[in-house]
């Protein structure tokens, strides 16, 4: 089962994704963290998410780039959070995949789907503010949108979380 969970900033998508994966109630649960903290605000954000996951039995693996080569044994359930950070890392970090970002992220996601019974993937709705950004940022938006579409095609369900409320765009 592959679930894509998306939503805007502060929409409750992370809490929803965690709830989703806990419903499977399996033994081995892996959380793949993609946010590369570089300032106080990012550290606070990571800490907030760690607090949310506390006592939920996740093993956390950090993966900022190169998801397809993540060293990972089989797991029952995997929660990957999130595509927006992973895409930014692949595009903007020194050792990122750059122009192959979308392709390589998808390769990584297919690998995770083979390695797990249930895969829950969190992404981000960043496409509706009507602002035109610089070329680099526009390119980022376009690549993330492409990754979202490809993951949605692969997924069994696509859920947009709106203030904690699940809106189903695809269910099998």
């Amino acid at each position, binding site marked *: 089962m592959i679930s894509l969970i998306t*939503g*805007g*900033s*502060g*929409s*409750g998508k992370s809490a929803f994704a965690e709830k989703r994966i806990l419903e499977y109630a399996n033994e081995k649960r892996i959380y793949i963290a993609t946010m590369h903290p570089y300032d106080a*605000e990012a550290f606070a954000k990571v800490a907030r998410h760690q607090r949310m996951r506390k006592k939920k039995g996740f093993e956390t693996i950090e993966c900022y780039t190169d998801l397809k080569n993540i060293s990972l044994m089989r797991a029952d359930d995997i929660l990957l959070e999130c595509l927006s950070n992973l895409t930014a890392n692949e595009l903007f970090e020194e050792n990122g995949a750059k122009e192959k970002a979308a392709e390589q992220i998808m390769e990584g996601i297919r690998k995770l789907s083979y390695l797990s019974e249930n895969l829950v993937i969190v992404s981000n*709705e*960043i*496409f*509706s*503010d*009507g*602002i035109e*950004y610089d070329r680099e*940022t526009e390119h980022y*938006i376009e690549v993330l949108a492409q990754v979202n579409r490809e993951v949605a095609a692969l997924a069994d369900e696509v859920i947009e979380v*709106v*203030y*904690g*409320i699940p*809106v189903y765009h695809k269910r099998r």
Partner: protein
Amino acid sequence: MILIIGGAYQGKKAYARDLFGGSFIDGAKCPLEELFSCRGIYYFHEYVKRWMESERTLEKGTELDEVLANQIIQQNPEVVIISNEIGCGIVPMDAGERRWRELVGRTMTHLAAFSGEVHRVVCGIGTVIKQKE
């Protein structure tokens, strides 16, 4: 409590008027305390910005979103709240803008959990995305 949400200029106010009548207060201008006694409020996202910028001391370990949401739930549980969804863009460079977006999102998430109904308006058309039995 009833929430009516959606993007900018989607006809949320007119939709709310059709369903619940008029006499809502303007969240961009009203005195802050009016939220806790009004029948309904529009531009709630603007209210949140003004509320955030008004001086307030917080007890340690409390979050702003919980403070605001709890106060509304306790003092005006029947209110109709109309708010723009503002969290669906690129994360802003400005720290204050980021805080505002997250505060609106988290406050609305608390309120949505409490609400009996949540309507989402797109192109003037409302869809009920939550309805308590």
